[in-house]
């Protein structure tokens, strides 16, 4: 089978996220880059599906040329092919992003054959637009469900054709979808437990030929004006004490809050 994973390169902030002076982006000085944990799990899922069913996995990213690093990371854990749509920016709006990704998938599929499963992260770590996967899937005419935390692929589901069972977490369990393949899912962290690259994987990733594409997709209707840090309530922290001697003060607090009698 053929599996595609879409990932987005983002800065990896620490305890605080700083904004550049012009308010246009996260100040990434001294920061490394990463992708959303949702997408790390998506890559792992693709590798597992290929291990179980055979075939080929492909990673696709849209962003700046530096997203080459995320393609190579994907290869280091076992993804076989990579396409980078060089947008020269990390800031394309959701409609433009979806349209560029759709075009890119069409040309990959023309060359290599259709994808049985396309995997997206539930939402990107930074802009969190919650829509690129759905837009791409609709444009390509494939069913898509988001917020998925469990999958099982059945390539010969009794006469129904290949089916992907997708599970979404609810307050008390799961709801289950049965998607006819080819299909798409948006996954959440926890669906898999990403492996670390092996030495062999790292070496192989250096040799990966990342296919760089460009796009003439036009901007959509949503425009970023600037970023702000949300106001935080600043409260003095009341120090209840040090070590085990603080226990009585904690119990007082629990009583005060009505959490014990």
């Amino acid at each position: 089978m053929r599996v595609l994973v879409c990932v987005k390169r983002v800065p990896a902030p620490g305890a605080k996220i700083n904004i550049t002076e012009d308010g246009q982006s996260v100040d990434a000085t001294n920061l490394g880059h990463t992708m959303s944990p949702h997408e790390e799990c998506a890559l792992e899922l693709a590798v597992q599906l290929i291990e179980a069913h055979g075939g080929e996995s492909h990673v696709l990213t849209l962003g700046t040329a530096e997203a080459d690093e995320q393609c190579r990371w994907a290869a280091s854990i076992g993804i076989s092919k990579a396409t980078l749509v060089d947008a020269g920016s990390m800031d394309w709006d959701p409609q433009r992003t979806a349209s560029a990704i759709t075009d890119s998938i069409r040309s990959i599929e023309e060359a290599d054959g259709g994808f049985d499963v396309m995997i997206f992260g539930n939402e990107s770590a930074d802009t969190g637009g919650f829509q690129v996967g759905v837009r791409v899937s609709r444009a390509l005419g494939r069913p898509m469900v988001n917020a998925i935390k469990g999958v099982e692929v059945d390539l010969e589901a009794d006469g129904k054709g290949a089916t992907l069972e997708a599970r979404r977490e609810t307050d008390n369990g799961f709801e289950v979808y049965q998607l006819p393949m080819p299909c798409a899912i948006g996954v959440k962290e926890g669906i898999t437990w990403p492996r670390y690259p092996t030495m062999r994987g790292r070496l192989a990733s250096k040799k990966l030929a990342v296919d760089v594409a460009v796009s003439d997709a036009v901007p959509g209707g949503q425009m970023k004006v600037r970023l702000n840090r949300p106001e935080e309530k600043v409260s003095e922290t009341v120090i209840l004490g040090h070590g085990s001697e603080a226990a009585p003060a904690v119990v007082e607090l629990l009583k005060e809050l009505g959490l014990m009698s």
Partner: protein
Amino acid sequence: MSVLVVIEHDRDQLADASLEALAFAADVAAQLGVDVEALLIGVDAVSLADECAAHGASTVHHVADASLTDYGPDAYGGAVASAAGVLSPSAIVASGSDRGNEVLAYAAAELDLPFVANCLAVKTADDWEMTRVQWGGSLNEEARLASSMPILSVASHAAEVAEPVTGATATVQTLEVTLPESATATMIQDRIVLSEGVTLATAPVVVGGGRGVGSAEGFEVLEALAAKLGGIVGCSRAVTNNGWRPHADQVGQTGTRIAPQLYIACGISGAIQHWVGAKAAKKILAINTDPAANMVVKADYAVIGDLFDVLPAITDIT
């Protein structure tokens, strides 16, 4: 003209987030000088009409298509797009939940219009201006929107639910929609119930553990205190990454957002991605060896010390 609110429900159980969406829509509608109307999808969902009226919807449009007995994103998104065609609302609003965002993404894709997810505030003008959530709540984005029919979801807790108007009854209008042929492919086929009762999202007390807990076994001291308080154990991503707890226990941007009366954060440094999942807690008590840890600085209360000394001492006398 109206602001049309897509009501989220699960087999006719109203989702609380829908009330926030109605409250948010009331503000948008007031700016535009139009009414709030609700869209109820599903044959039996009409039972929710009066509740929608009590929360500000003047008219309820009911989609009673027999194939819509359960949820499916394509079916719901298709119904919204079709309703938009018939009703020509000034804007479409839903809650910024898994389902709300998914349905609006489907509808926006179908209508070929922008969709702005997780808004905190909106100013209506020729180009609408909105404040929306980025980085799971760590940052806000000021955005501008050029659209003939703004479609937006409401970030969790962005609007305060208004007191319901007692005795309100809705004007219900049945709405015929055309659903996409593909709709059946994404309908819910089954449900699996794993646990009833307290969940991380609804627990009154959450005892959270981070890297400072050191091992899976280390969580016993957290479990012991949680049990005494009728609470539940949560954790940071450092913990799930180490395989000490399942991901279902993770609090944060890519885990669960909690809102307990008290969050006791033990051995958690308070990285921004963890904080955004914990900040809706009414009170936070940090237990940490490092008085300068972000969690300690931001918490309402703190105990400075080793969690393996502090927690058993508390549990002993509760």
